[in-house]
C-alpha cells in the first residue's frame, strides 16, 4: 500500500521549477496544410549526411526515398510530399549554417497520401532485420538529440541492458507534443517499446512521465501489457527531469559515471515520440515524412500541436498558426535549451520539437543589468550535475578555461541552463561555458 503522504513522485536532486506554460497540452493534435515548397536537408541527424538519389526535375511520391543512408551512422531521407524536385543545393538551416538540401515543389492538387510503403510482419523478424528496417524508416531521436534510432538501439554484444527508460518527462516549458503523443498514440508507443526491447534485449521498460500529465499516465497505464514488463512511473514536475542523467537517477537511483554512456550502467534511454513513430512506421514499412511538434508562445494566435511535414519553412508554419507581427523572437525547441533563429526561411527537420514565438521582452527583460557574482550560491543548489557554476563563471571571466575543465569539471555541464535561470546577477553563465568548451576543444585539436 502506498501512503499518499509518504509517497512522492520519483525525482532527482537539485533542478528548478520554471513557469511551465503547458496550456497546449489539452489541445488534440491537428494536421497542418502543406507548404508550396519544402526544403529537406540531407543531414537532419548526427552522423554522415544522406546521399541524394534524385535529380532536379524528377517527380517524387510522398514517402519515396530521396536520399540514401551513407553507411551505418547515417539515415535515409524520404520525400515529405508528392511533388517535383525543384533544386538540389545549399540552403540555410536553423543553426545558421548552409547545408545541402533538396527543395520540393509540392503538387497542390495531390491527395498527399503516403504512396510508398512495404508493410512488414515485425513479429517474424530477427534483431538484425529489425535494425536494418529501423534505419530504413529514417527515424532519429525526435526529442531533439537527432541521434539515429537504430544506432542507439544497437547494443554491443558485450553490453547487457537490464532496463530501458522511456523518456516522457517533457520538462521543457511550453512543449506538449510528447504529452499529446502519449495520450493519442499510446498504442504506437507500446508497439515501439516492444520493438526497441526486442532489438536491445532489454527485459523491462519504465516509462517516466512528469506528474503534470496525469492523463498521459492514465492513458499509458490503460494500454500496458499484462505481463508487467512495461511500467509507468510518475516523476516530479521539475526541470531538467527529462535529461538522460536525471531521469535515470530518478527512476533507478543510478548515476551514469562521468563521461560514460547510459549503456555502461545497463540502461537505454529513448524518447516517447521516437518510439511512437517507430511503432507506427515500422510495421507499415514507411519512412518518416512528418512529425508532431508544438507551436506556442504569446506570439501566435492558434497555439497547439500540429502534424507538420518535414521541410516545411518556418515562415509558412507561422503564417498558418497566425503569428503576430510583434513576434520577433522565434525559438526552436524549448525555452531552456532551444535556440533562437535569425531567419524564418529555414525548414522544420526531424529534430524540431517545438516552435515558440515571443514579442520583444515577453520572455525576459531585453537587457537585464549584469552584476558581478554576489556569491549567493543559488546556482550550486540547482545544478543537476553538482557543479560549481559560480566558480566556473568567475574563472570564465578571467578566461582560465583550462582550469575550468581540469579542476571544476566543465565538461560535465550539459548546458541545461538552470544556473543562468536563477542567477540574480544575470551573468550569462551557460554562454560563458559554451565559449570555454569551444576554446578548450580548439586547443585540444590544435
Amino acid at each position, binding site marked *: 500500500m502506498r501512503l499518499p503522504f509518504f509517497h512522492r513522485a520519483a525525482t532527482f536532486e537539485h533542478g528548478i521549477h520554471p513557469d511551465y506554460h503547458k496550456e497546449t497540452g489539452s489541445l488534440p493534435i491537428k494536421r497542418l496544410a502543406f507548404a508550396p515548397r519544402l526544403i529537406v536537408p540531407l543531414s537532419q541527424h548526427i552522423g554522415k549526411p544522406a546521399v541524394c538519389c534524385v535529380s532536379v526535375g524528377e517527380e517524387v511520391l510522398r514517402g519515396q526515398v530521396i536520399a540514401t543512408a551513407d553507411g551505418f551512422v547515417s539515415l535515409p531521407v524520404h520525400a515529405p510530399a508528392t511533388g517535383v524536385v525543384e533544386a538540389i543545393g545549399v540552403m540555410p538551416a536553423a543553426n545558421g549554417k548552409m547545408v545541402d538540401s533538396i527543395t520540393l515543389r509540392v503538387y497542390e492538387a495531390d491527395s498527399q497520401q503516403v504512396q510508398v510503403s512495404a508493410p512488414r510482419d515485425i513479429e517474424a523478424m530477427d534483431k538484425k532485420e529489425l535494425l536494418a528496417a529501423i534505419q530504413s524508416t529514417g527515424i532519429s531521436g525526435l526529442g531533439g538529440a537527432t541521434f539515429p534510432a537504430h544506432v542507439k538501439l544497437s547494443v554491443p554484444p558485450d553490453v547487457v541492458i537490464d532496463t530501458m527508460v522511456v523518456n516522457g518527462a517533457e520538462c521543457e516549458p511550453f512543449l506538449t507534443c510528447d504529452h499529446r503523443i502519449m495520450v493519442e498514440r499510446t498504442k504506437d508507443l507500446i508497439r515501439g517499446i516492444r520493438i526497441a526491447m526486442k532489438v536491445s534485449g532489454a527485459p523491462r521498460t519504465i516509462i517516466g512521465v512528469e506528474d503534470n500529465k496525469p492523463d498521459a499516465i492514465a492513458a499509458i497505464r490503460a494500454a500496458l501489457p499484462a505481463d508487467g514488463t512495461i511500467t509507468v512511473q510518475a516523476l516530479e514536475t521539475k526541470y531538467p527531469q527529462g535529461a538522460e542523467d536525471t531521469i535515470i537517477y530518478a527512476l533507478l537511483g543510478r*548515476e551514469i559515471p562521468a563521461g560514460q554512456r547510459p549503456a555502461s*550502467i545497463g540502461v537505454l534511454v529513448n524518447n516517447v515520440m521516437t518510439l511512437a513513430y517507430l511503432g507506427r512506421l515500422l510495421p507499415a514499412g514507411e519512412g518518416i515524412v512528418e512529425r508532431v511538434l508544438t507551436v506556442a508562445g504569446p506570439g501566435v494566435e492558434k497555439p497547439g500541436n500540429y502534424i507538420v511535414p518535414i521541410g516545411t519553412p518556418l515562415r509558412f508554419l507561422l503564417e498558418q498558426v497566425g503569428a503576430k507581427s510583434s513576434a520577433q523572437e522565434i525559438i526552436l525547441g524549448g525555452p531552456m535549451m532551444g535556440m*533562437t533563429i535569425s531567419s524564418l526561411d529555414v525548414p522544420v527537420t526531424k529534430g524540431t520539437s517545438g516552435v515558440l514565438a515571443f514579442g520583444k521582452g515577453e520572455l525576459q527583460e531585453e537587457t537585464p543589468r549584469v552584476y558581478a557574482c554576489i556569491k549567493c550560491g543559488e546556482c*550550486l543548489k540547482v545544478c543537476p550535475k553538482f557543479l560549481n557554476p559560480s566558480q566556473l563563471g568567475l574563472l570564465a571571466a578571467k578566461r582560465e578555461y583550462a582550469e575550468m575543465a581540469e579542476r571544476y569539471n566543465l565538461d560535465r555541464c550539459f548546458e541545461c541552463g538552470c544556473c*543562468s535561470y536563477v542567477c540574480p546577477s544575470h551573468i550569462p553563465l551557460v554562454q560563458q561555458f559554451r565559449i570555454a568548451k569551444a576554446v578548450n576543444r580548439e586547443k585540444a585539436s590544435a
Partner: protein
Amino acid sequence: MSMELRTSPHQISDRSVERIMKHVVLSLLPVCGFSIWQYGLSALALLLTVTATCLATERLLNRAASQPSTLNDWSATITGVLLALTLPPAFPLWMAVVAGFVAIAIGKALFGGLGFNVFNPALIGRAFVQAAFPVAITTWVPAFSAQRFSEFVPTTLTAPLMMPPDIVEWIKLQAVDAFTGATPLARWKFENVVASSYDLLTGVVTASAGETSAILILLCGAYLAARKFMDWRIPVAVLASAALTAWMFQLYDPTHYPAPSFVLLSGGLMLGAVYMATDMATSPVTPLGVWIYGAVIGVVTVMIRYFGGLTEGVMYAILLGNALTPFIDLYTQPRVFGTRQQGKKK
C-alpha cells in the same frame, strides 16, 4: 523584420540582485521600527545618518571611478541600516558618519564593489569605530525614557571631532528603574548576573539599537529565508554551534557559565547570525561550506565572550568567518554527479 537572437536559456526567473537586496531592506524595517520605539529620536537620527552616509559614499566613489551608479542595487542601503543597528543608540552622529564612510569605502569599494568584498562592510565599519572610539561605543542609554520622542540623548549631537559629553547625570534624570548602563553580556561577564530569557526575547534590555529583540529578528529572518532571499542554513549553523558550545561549558561548570539560551539571546548573536553572517558575497557558496562557516562563527563567538577581553564576540567571529570563506569554498567543492558511489540498484 529584425529577429531577436539570444543564447539559451531564454526563460529566466525573476530573481535579481535588486530584488534580493530590496527584500532584505524591507525585512529590516520592523527591526528598525522597534529600535526607534525603544530609543526614540536618537535611534532614528542614527539610522538615517549612517544610511545616508553609506549611500553618499557609494555614489561619490562610483563617480570617482567613472562607474554607473550602484545605488539602485540597494546593497549600500543594507550596509547602512545594518551598521546603524549594531551601534549604541546614542552613538555620536559624527562618529556614525565615520563608521558609514569606512564601511563603504574600505569595506566594499576598495575591493571592487558588490560581490568582490571579502568582509562584511557593515562589520568593517563597526570594527573601525570600535577601535577608534572605545568609550562611545560602550556607552549605553536606557530604553523607553520618557522624553525619547521629544529630545535627543546629549551624546547624539556631539560636535564633530569632539568627544561626547558624560551622560551619567542625564541618565539619572531619566529615572528609569535599575538602569546599570551595561549590556546583559557585560553584566554577566563582570558581575555574573544573568538576564532573564523573557527580557532578552522581547528586547527590554540595554543593547545596540538592533540587537535587542531576538524574536523580532528571528521572525524577519524567517520571512527572508521563506522567500529564499537568505540561506537559512547559515543562521541555523551559527546558532546551533553557539548553543552546543555554550551547553558543553555549562556542563563543565554550571556556576560560572550561563545557559545556552542566554548565549543565544544576548548581545548581537541573533542579528549577526541572521543578517551579518548571511551576507552572500562574504559567505561560502558550497552546500557543505555554509555549515562549516556557520559552525566556526558560533564557536568563535562563544570563545571570545568567555575568554576574550571583550564582552561581545560576534563581530570578530563573523569577520574571521569571512576571511576563511575562500578557503572553505576551495576545500568543500561539491562532488560532481557521476563520480559518487553508485546508489543502490532498484
